[in-house]
């Protein structure tokens, strides 16, 4: 009897020892992990930079493979000609919208002042061309960094003058660009009403609002006074109020407005003009004077 009890105690002790051993393993593992996390964060920038530099060729290959294969698959559904024509029309449309935005700005303000401002803003920019190599959570990776004169907060645009976002983190050889669709992104915009179709009058009062990112390459328009009239197809361009971005860069167009008379502001769903999938090169504006 005594022997059985001794055996049972032995089993119990072994079980407790085994459990303690497991906990000890987990604790040691956790401690080592925390130590490594701490070390990693000290050297976060060089680690990310080395990782990017080493992975850039493979990532670029995957990017190009994805781009061409999605184009082929898309072509199978839509027809090659249609797809090419669509891209051409899109580019042309964005250029025209950019011109309309500039024209409206000229008509509304003082002609001379606008000319000076347009000259300063549109032709005085120092641009750095950068290739796109990755996208994660509405953060775009571009292959230029501090070695190319890029700093945090610089606006990033396409060749058509479409706003993509601004540099969020800059490493030696690459940078992270926070797209305007990122949930942390809030930018001031002007709504340029498309009244030509309705009244024949091309010039309409501009409405100020903000574009907030909602993730997944989407964004919405907010803080539009309830009394203001906005409509689908109204174009949004950057406003210079915040001074984070140059004015009159193309942002997107309204798809559907959400108006509730009980709320002081109305919102609207947007179609952003930037297209990450078909963009290979972007431009970072190096010399725009920033508020921050």
């Amino acid at each position, binding site marked *: 009897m005594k022997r059985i009890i001794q055996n049972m105690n032995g089993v119990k002790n072994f079980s407790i020892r085994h459990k303690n051993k*497991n906990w000890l*393993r*987990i604790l040691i*593992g*956790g401690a080592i*992990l925390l130590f*490594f*996390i701490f070390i*990693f*964060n000290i050297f*976060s920038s060089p*680690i*990310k930079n080395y*990782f990017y530099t080493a*992975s850039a060729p*493979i*990532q*670029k290959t*995957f*990017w190009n*493979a*994805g*781009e061409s*294969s*999605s184009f082929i698959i898309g072509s199978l559904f839509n027809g090659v000609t249609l797809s090419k024509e669509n891209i051409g029309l899109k580019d042309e449309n964005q250029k025209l919208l950019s011109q309309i935005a500039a024209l409206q700005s000229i008509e509304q303000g003082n002609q001379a002042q606008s000319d000076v401002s347009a000259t300063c803003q549109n032709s005085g920019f120092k641009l750095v061309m950068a290739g796109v*190599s*990755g*996208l*994660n*959570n509405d*953060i775009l*990776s571009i292959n230029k960094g501090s070695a190319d004169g890029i700093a945090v907060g610089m606006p990033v645009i396409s060749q058509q003058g479409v706003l993509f976002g601004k540099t*969020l*983190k800059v490493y030696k050889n690459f940078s*992270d660009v*926070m797209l305007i*669709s*990122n*949930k*942390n992104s809030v930018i001031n915009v002007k709504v340029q009403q498309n009244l030509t179709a309705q009244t024949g009058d091309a010039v309409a009062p501009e409405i100020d609002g903000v574009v*907030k990112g*909602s*993730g*997944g*390459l*989407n964004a*919405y328009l*907010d803080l539009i006074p309830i009394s203001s009239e906005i409509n689908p197809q109204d174009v949004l361009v950057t406003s210079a109020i915040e001074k984070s971005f140059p004015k009159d860069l193309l942002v997107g167009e309204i798809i559907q407005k959400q108006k509730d008379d009980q709320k002081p502001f109305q919102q609207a769903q947007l179609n952003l003009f930037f297209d*990450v*999938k078909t963009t290979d090169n972007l431009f970072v504006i190096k010399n725009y004077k920033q508020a921050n």
Partner: protein
Amino acid sequence: MWQKPLFIIILFYLFILLQNSFFVHYSLFGATPNLVFILFFLLAFFVKKDRNYQIIYLSAIAGILLDISSYAYLGVSIVVLMAIGFMLKKTQSSLKNMADSYPFAHFLPLFIVFFIVYRVLAMAYLQFIDPSHILMSFNLSFIAGIAYNTVFAVIGFWIFKKLGKKALR
């Protein structure tokens, strides 16, 4: 002995590059498959009961790669994945035993639930959420993301069951 961890590291590395480059072009309403999370979940799901400590190194590899490729502090994803991994094992152990130790009937609902948990936690640490953002965050892209990732996870589950189970154990 060392081949298995090395193979897992290479697989995670390739998957992070693929999800950030190749699959960007195959987004569905703005959602792309999170291959690293799917692989982590599959590996964690098939970890044997007495080897739960493997969750630590799995989450360390997956988490560090996710953090390097995002703008978050290094280590945040490790902690999130580790919490998810251990919660998954705890849930699995409390589920009714079936003839198959790793049934699809367990995998599918667990993946969907833990993927939503992961997305919510990721949202909390990657984005500062103001009240107006909360409603907008649960949009079509969010739902599409769950559906899209579930499809990949299901494919991965069957591949893992048929081919990879022995190789990765």
